[in-house]
């Protein structure tokens, strides 16, 4: 058959190909396909009314339906399926690190990714990431997730460094009616939730509440930091081999009110969780972290404010608290400075609040131009800090036992309260300078009260090359603001540095979207980035102790390939392959930890009746050790998941079951290699000697009821 894509009409006539006769009656699905299109577009047509922009960026959108299909229960599950993204684990707690294009895989925090909820930043100030004590976002109230890979500071400002994640929550329009659900699964996990959306005249009301708990997998750690101390200094205090502390209890509630052009949202989330492998890489069966977040935002938007103007503004508030209880090292731990008879204990706490105000305007009065202007003010205040502990750090940063736990806030706080202001302005112009060509140019200036000013540009050239091919060439610069801990922290590992500057990145990308066949779409993106002013731990200038400072440069490159194939009306296959390498220019060697090869594939099969089966496979490979790390190579792993769904009673009930890591593959995430900085043999902290196991086979069952 030669009447394929690209053929002229005459070719089909010459070949004499004749399709099916029209006489047959169309089935229910065939008729609906003629109205709404394929499965994807049916879902879009029956989804929410939403305006999707042509973004000059490399982006992935995960919808609520996608989330159900892959059996995802938290953002971690979703992120692993996104091209260019791998979810690894902090070796200090159990915090999930979203490493985008290889960036940030070697860290205990995740400040290179800007997390937005309905467009409002939710990154916290102490560590700069989305908040370690609050857990990964739950998904039952999520309408869609937009993930932008690459720099975004020209529009979003700080921390849009390796990527931006924007979580769009459900509202009365996208989730009308009342739904309640429950899920139970392995490791004594239970979640229950209820969600409601309705309209009262011009007022939209949506509310959601979820409660959940889990013991977690409690994977066994063979040896921890204390194991090393025991070998070096004597003692037998380590809990290893023993289970990680992975229990968690959480409450999550959100409210969404809409009235004409106004929207008011509020949220409350609380988590009370174990510390994974421990705050100091030492198993901690008694420690807990309690996180609490309260957020609210009020916005007003009028896209047709006047003939050529669209206008909007947003004011938001976020309060975040971390209240920790650590047993950093167990009772009997011996260090060169003494013995911790009751264990090395700490109860740090931090309370911060953020106020943000922003306004934007879009002007379309110039022919072939769409200009977007914006400005804003941010007040980021860590207003209270608590330091309770039973030790002090000496000049080398080594803990010295001091007896009872007392308040050291006045003597040696782990952090002082700090307040940061930022004023910013940006402009972006999308210029259609020729048929099928558009150039987007943007520039944003941020002026921070503590570390100064930074300006970041963005250029995107988009060419609608042919009817079925779009090509993009993108350039952007971005920055990651130093966290308060990096500026002012007092830690056993390294002290903060008030003079520290933001990390910077420059990225160039080429992206292609090709509708290769009516049922096959291919996306290819190629990138190269250079990072400088990297924040790292170095010895202090006096030779005693360590401090964070800007030093060194890394460069990386890679490619992401995606395939979407609607194999039939009942089967859809999507797959992606991500390749990357990152070179640390101080060693000219691989920066390590992040997979250089990563592939993910899933199929969605609409079976007889209302059954839906969705198998998926995830392959993580080629994670290098850094120079000096003589441990054996990190083993590759492949996991299989399977999700089965069915709906009953006209869709009122939806039942689903999912198995993650079906074959119980051993999957390990690399722990950080810490060469003793400055060759100080008594350097007190150490990574876990062995790599960390991630979740074994996990099963859950779920029922949802639409009332």
């Amino acid at each position, binding site marked *: 058959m030669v009447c394929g894509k690209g*053929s002229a009409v005459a070719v089909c006539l010459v070949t004499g190909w004749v399709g099916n006769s029209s006489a047959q009656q169309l089935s229910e699905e065939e008729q*609906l396909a003629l109205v709404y299109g394929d499965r994807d577009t049916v879902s879009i047509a029956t989804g929410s009314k939403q305006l999707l922009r042509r973004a000059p960026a490399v982006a992935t959108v995960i919808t609520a339906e996608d989330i159900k299909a892959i059996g995802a229960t938290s953002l971690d599950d979703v992120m692993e399926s996104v091209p260019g993204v791998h979810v690894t684990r902090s070796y200090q707690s159990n915090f999930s690190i979203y490493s985008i294009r290889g960036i940030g895989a070697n860290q205990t925090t995740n400040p290179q990714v800007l997390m937005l909820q309905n467009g409002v930043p939710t990154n916290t100030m102490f560590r700069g990431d989305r908040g370690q004590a609050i857990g990964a976002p739950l998904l039952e109230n999520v309408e869609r997730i937009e993930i932008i890979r690459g720099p975004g500071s020209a529009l979003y400002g700080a921390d849009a460094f390796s990527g931006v994640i924007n979580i769009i929550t459900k509202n009365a329009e996208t989730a009308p009616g009342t739904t309640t659900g429950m899920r139970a699964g392995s490791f004594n996990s239970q979640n229950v939730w209820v969600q409601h959306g309705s309209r009262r005249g011009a007022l939209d009301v949506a509310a959601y509440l979820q409660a959940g708990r889990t013991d977690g997998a409690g994977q066994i750690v063979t040896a921890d930091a204390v194991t090393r101390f025991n070998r070096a200094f004597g003692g037998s205090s380590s809990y290893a081999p023993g289970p990680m502390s992975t229990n968690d209890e959480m409450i999550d509630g959100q409210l969404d009110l809409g009235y004409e052009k106004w929207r008011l949202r509020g949220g409350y989330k609380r988590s009370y969780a174990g510390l994974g492998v421990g705050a100091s890489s030492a198993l901690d069966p008694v420690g807990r972290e309690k996180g609490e977040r309260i957020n609210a935002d009020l916005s007003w938007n009028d896209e047709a404010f006047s003939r050529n103007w669209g206008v909007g503004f947003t004011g938001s508030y976020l309060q975040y608290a971390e209240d920790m209880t650590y047993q950093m090292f167990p009772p009997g731990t011996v260090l060169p400075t003494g013995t911790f008879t009751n264990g090395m204990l700490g109860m740090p706490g931090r309370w911060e609040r953020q106020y943000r105000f922003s306004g934007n305007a879009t002007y379309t009065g110039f022919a072939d131009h769409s200009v977007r202007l914006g400005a804003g003010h941010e007040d980021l205040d860590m207003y209270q800090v608590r330091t309770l502990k039973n030790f002090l750090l000496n000049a080398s940063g080594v803990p010295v036992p001091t007896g009872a736990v007392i308040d050291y806030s006045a003597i040696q706080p782990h952090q002082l309260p700090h307040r940061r202001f930022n004023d910013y302005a940006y402009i972006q112009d999308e210029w259609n300078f020729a048929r099928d060509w558009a150039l987007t140019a943007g520039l944003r200036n941020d002026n921070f009260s503590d570390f100064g000013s930074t300006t970041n540009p963005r250029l995107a050239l988009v060419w609608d090359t042919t009817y079925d091919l779009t090509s993009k060439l993108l350039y952007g610069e971005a920055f990651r603001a130093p966290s308060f801990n990096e500026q002012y922290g007092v830690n056993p590992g390294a002290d903060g540095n008030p003079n520290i500057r933001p990390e910077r990145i420059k990225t160039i990308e080429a992206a292609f979207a090709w509708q290769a066949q009516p049922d096959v779409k291919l996306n290819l993106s190629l990138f190269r980035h250079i990072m400088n002013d990297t924040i790292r731990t170095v010895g202090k200038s006096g030779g005693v102790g360590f401090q964070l400072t800007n030093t060194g440069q890394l460069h990386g490159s890679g490619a992401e390939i995606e395939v979407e194939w609607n194999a039939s009306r009942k089967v859809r296959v999507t797959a992606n392959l991500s390749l990357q390498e990152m070179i640390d220019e101080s060693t000219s060697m691989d920066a390590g930890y992040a997979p250089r090869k990563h592939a993910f594939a899933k199929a969605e099969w609409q079976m007889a009746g*209302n059954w839906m089966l969705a198998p998926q496979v995830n392959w993580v490979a080629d994670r290098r050790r850094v120079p000096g790390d003589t441990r054996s190579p990190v083993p590759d792993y492949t996991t299989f998941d399977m999700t089965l769904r069915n709906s009953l009673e006209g869709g009122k009930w939806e039942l689903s079951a999912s198995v993650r890591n079906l074959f119980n593959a051993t999957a390990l995430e690399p722990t950080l290699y810490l060469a003793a900085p400055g060759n100080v043999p008594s350097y007190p902290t150490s990574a876990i000697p062995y790599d960390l196991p991630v979740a074994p086979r996990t099963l859950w069952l779920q029922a949802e009821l639409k009332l």
Partner: protein
Amino acid sequence: MSCMIQPTLNRHPVFRALAGLLLLAALVAGSTQAFSDIAGSQARKAIAGSGRVAIVYPAIGEPYRSVFEQIISGIESQTGGHTTNFEVGANADFGELKNSLRQQGVEVVIALGSQGVKFAATLDRDIGVVAGGVIAPAGDELHDAPVQSLSPAPALLFGRLKQLMPGARRVFAVYEPRQNGWLIRYAKEAARAQGLELVAYEGQDMRSAAAAYQNILSVADSRRDAIWLLQDSIGAEGGTILPMVLQEAWNHNLVVFSSNFGHVRRGALFSLYPDNVGMGRRLAGMALGFLSSGSYEEQGMIPLREVQAAINLRTAEHLGVRPGKGMEFGMVFPER
């Protein structure tokens, strides 16, 4: 040790109370929804009710199920939820279903989808029928009952075309007569009313459809002509005809608009597609009108007027088409 580290929230009373409350709500809600089969047949009664209006809709999986759920929600918003709803599978026992309708005193049936229409065609004439959720009945005898088609009204399509392309003078279409003959009759009238000439080719099979498009593309003038893709398995066949038409139209800067929402994602300039909830409200209005008057206000096939619009901005930019500020679109492609 002076400071005992004790988890204080491990069984926090607020957490336990909240979890228990949610669990209770879910269980109570669940217990009120009993599964019930109708004498073992595949016809399934979904919602208990005592109204004089029944909805019969097809058993179909997602994502298509959502279409009917939205239509039903529109119906129920008009009837106050006083309907009796039946999901019918491919092998449903229509006899049992009819008995059930009679026992419940149903006076009018809103038949959705091909399966619903197929059932409605077996009903005696003392029960009213309002049909919807189909492009056109596949030969089922519905007497004089109204059938709300899923095909957008040509008048609305042509009106939108004139908004986006004020210079449009001629519209070409290729259609399979048994599927869309009825609609073309409406369309010719609607075109005339808007100062357009509709040039419609019959496509009995793929070969004749391809030949028709060859004719169209050889004569079409991008300044004044446009191509209309119908909901047609021949004239807008997705695997071969559609990509050819879209590619040639792109190359010749021709406007292509469609009655199929999915075509906009593929590259058509715009489409009108059903506002399912609005369509449900309209069906409910027709059914309630029958209940009050005992007769139908309209009869036979009715093109859909409850629609939303979708546009492809990539195509619009390629064609130099600029949607006006006041123009509302329910969906904008391409998505990022």
